[in-house]
């Protein structure tokens, strides 16, 4: 099964493009993404290098048509309007973009104004993803965000005025000091704006971040502002899911919710193992059942496009991925699709695992699909790990 936007009429294969823009104004205290501040000259040099990378890689993709593009970061909205236009010119010069392609750009509230939004429209961007995280300023400060809630409101309204009709808002739950009610307040404040899409991520304390030093496994002493306990964290998650479903959003992936037809096509490509090419620092790709990724070292990237990591996926690895990626989507894994892809029945490979997980109430089976139950969703990692052969 493939959705219509993954197929195409001219026998061309569907490709998604990811472009990484690693620069930000200031690193947030929870952030372990590949991002860092840099001066204007370095940022321009990087964009030039991206153009060169497209020229270098695109030759292999003449048989492909781009159905989605995602510019992530970092803070891609730090690019000037002209820089963005130049970047998208490069994309169009080297790749064939399908007319109805989903073209998303991540924006930090407070970094876009009417002028930049109009340049984004001109560059063809048709979807914006705002990294709001919380509607409460004290929580934003604690996270080390550079914007306030009112900055976000201004940016959001400006985006609507500029004609963007497909907007995602990122929120975070389980923040330090956050209560169930303050979490729901943030959600309501965003719901009032009726965005087409919401991503609500439960805070992950990542090694190497300032938050890790405060809240990580080896953190000394008790932090002044503690994290919500596990029960509260799960309660937040489940209440968010219920509230968004009641408001007409489809809970289609662990942390993602969309109005009908507004699921992020680009992200679905990752979970459904569609083909994608990552451009820029540290960007990951899946092409021809080969996973590879660019170097995460900026000076090396500026001089070589050689993949830092590369792996040809065996049939076993593909089966495992089909399971652990497929289960991130609420619709789960289709028995028929599994059989079509591998010529083997899912039960022949995973029979005992599926049976055990179903018996434990972690998986359910309906209409030829296996999917996570509400309980299975809480402990998705060990459930997914069970599918490694």
């Amino acid at each position, binding site marked *: 099964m493939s959705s219509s936007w993954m197929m195409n009429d001219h026998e061309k294969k569907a490709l998604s493009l990811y472009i990484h823009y690693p620069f930000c104004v200031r690193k947030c205290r929870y952030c372990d993404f590949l991002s860092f501040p840099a001066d204007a000259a370095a940022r321009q040099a990087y964009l030039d290098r991206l153009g060169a990378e497209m020229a270098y890689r695109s030759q292999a993709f003449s048989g492909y048509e781009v159905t989605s593009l995602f510019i*992530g970061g970092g803070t891609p909205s730090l690019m000037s309007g002209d820089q963005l236009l130049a970047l998208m010119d490069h994309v169009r010069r080297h790749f064939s973009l399908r007319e109805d392609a989903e073209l998303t750009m991540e924006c930090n509230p407070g970094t876009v104004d009417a002028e930049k939004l109009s340049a984004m429209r001109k560059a063809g961007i048709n979807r914006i993803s705002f990294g709001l995280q919380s509607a409460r300023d004290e929580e934003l400060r604690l996270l080390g965000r550079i914007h306030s809630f009112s900055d976000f409101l201004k940016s959001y309204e400006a985006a609507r005025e500029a004609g963007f009709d497909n907007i995602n808002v990122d929120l975070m739950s389980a923040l330090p000091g956050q209560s169930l009610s303050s979490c729901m307040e943030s959600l309501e404040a965003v719901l009032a704006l009726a965005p087409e899409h919401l991503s609500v991520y439960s805070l992950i304390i990542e090694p190497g971040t300032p938050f890790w030093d405060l809240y990580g496994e080896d953190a000394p002493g008790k932090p002044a502002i503690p994290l919500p306990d596990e029960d509260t964290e799960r309660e937040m998650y489940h209440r968010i899911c219920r509230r968004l479903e009641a408001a007409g959003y489809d809970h289609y992936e662990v942390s993602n919710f969309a109005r009908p037809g507004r699921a992020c096509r680009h992200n679905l490509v990752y979970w459904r193992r569609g083909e994608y090419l990552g451009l820029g620092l*540290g960007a*990951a790709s899946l092409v021809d059942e080969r*996973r590879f990724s660019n170097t995460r070292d900026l000076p090396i990237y500026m001089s070589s496009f050689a993949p830092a990591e590369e792996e040809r996926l065996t049939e076993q690895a593909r089966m495992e991925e089909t399971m*652990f990626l497929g289960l991130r989507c609420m619709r789960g894994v289709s028995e028929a699709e599994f059989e079509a892809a591998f010529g083997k029945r899912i039960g022949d490979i995973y029979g005992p695992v599926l049976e055990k997980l179903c018996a*434990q109430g972690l998986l359910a089976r309906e209409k030829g699909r296996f999917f996570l139950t509400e309980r299975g969703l809480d*402990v*998705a990692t060990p459930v*997914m*790990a069970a599918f490694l052969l």
Partner: protein
Amino acid sequence: MQVDQSKIRNFCIIAHIDHGKSTLADRIIEKTGTLTLREMQDQVLDNMDLERERGITIKSQAVRIVYKSKSGEEYIYNLIDTPGHVDFNYEVSRSLAACDGAILVVDAAQGVEAQTLANVYLALDHDLDVMPVINKIDLPSADPDRVVTEIEDVIGIEAEDAPRISAKNGINIEEVLEQIIEKIPAPTGDPDAPLKALIFDSVYDSYKGVIVFFRVKEGRIAKGTRVRMMATGAEFETVEVGYFGAGQFIPCDELSAGMVGYMTASIKNLRETRVGDTITDADHPCDEPLPGYKKVNPMVYCGMYPADGARYPDLRDALEKLQLNDASLFYEPETSVALGFGFRCGFLGLLHLEIIQERLEREYNLDLVTTAPSVVYHIHKTNGEMISLSNPSNMPDPSEIDYMEEPVVAAEIMVTTDYIGPIMDLCMERRGVYLGMEYLETTRALLKYELPLNEIIYDFFDALKSRSRGYASFDYELKGYQRSELVKLDILVNKEAVDALSFIVFADSAYERGRKMCEKLKQEIPRQLFEVPIQAAIGSKIIARETVKAMRKDVLAKCYGGDISRKRKLLEKQKEGKKRMRQVGNVEIPQKAFMSVLKLDDE
């Protein structure tokens, strides 16, 4: 090589643990120039890593030293190092049999301790002359005069002219070397009589085969001598004889009565050269073998399992090798539902158990899971049969048991008077029967108790140290068996009994111990996808229960930018973690949970 017997001294150094035995040995070797300074490394004789780290001697070692006395004559000293801990009395006994005298090292601050006494008695049993040395005189708390009085009063040997030294700082070592000539007797024995040599140790060398360490009591042995091991009957042609340099073997032409050395004869099987056996000349045999060593029986048993079941053969090989020069180690195959294939092993005591475990892990690179130690119980069945039980899993049904007996030990605890109260409390808690107390001086006393062995094999030593702030020391010997009310306590995880966690306990202590086991396991068993009850039971009666709550949350909220490899690594890490667990029913139990129950009084 003809050496005048009167110029040979064979001796060992005995001491309470930490009193400086190995340091003195090092100084003696250093002073006599047996090693150059560059070759010298602290504690030359303790050549196992483990011995160095723990600062204790486990295996006997020997070294030959040439000493030029003040009168200008050369003497040959054979120094045989011995273990200091009570668990290794067997090893001590082996070494003592090769000596004619012993240097007794006593700490100038701590004075006579329990093991000082135990070792002196062992030496006297072997008819050795004991030469006291007062060590650590440069410590601020040193009181050598008091210690001299103590040695004379408590042990009953002359100590007035005992050398007062600091082995650590090399003070008065010459005096020790000089006194050895006077205080340690020269060996006797007729070099022209038929060969009679006592094997006190052996090691395996992949080039030379078994290297046999022995003391020639009578006769002589040279390259080419056909020898017979009198107990096993095995005969060999001697390939090489020699003596011990520090850390190396030095070949020589011949060893005669009174000398200590080694031989090789391309011996492939260590079993043919048993420690304690007598070597004689196959062509001119002696009439009777020398008396062997006191045979010791293991007192403590536990199951040892390879963490990775595939390494069972490696564990078997390793145990076999260790047993070759540690006759006190016992093992036999055993199977556990929870742990798979392994061995039931017998040890002299808990330290012996720990040492073997560490040697298996370090020298043989094995990852082990050990079960709770058990003593040997006597079970008298209603049909009149008596069985010795060292594995709780084999306990017969209670209906078949008439009564049970457990081993008891006579324990001597040396303690400063301030801590007599807490130590007596501890012995009471451990079902001790007070036998008496002797004041050694105004501030120190020797407490005598009768204690069930199963009360001291877990953590008694730790408890003793903590309740006396480290001032108590302890020695024991098996006294016999006594009738006792004992029950088998089973641990059920998720309603299934885990055989490796079963143990036998005094009936009145069962409730307390069961509760502690459950509490400890609750900490050690990670949360699973479902709730896991942990229960302690006697027969079908549940006496304690804890619950490991179900895992609440483990889900990755975000998976960024299509970096699937990173996600896979996380899943693989989870799977790896599972491999280090033991699957019991549906529950994954970490290997260390099986060991954590050994120390229930930690916190």
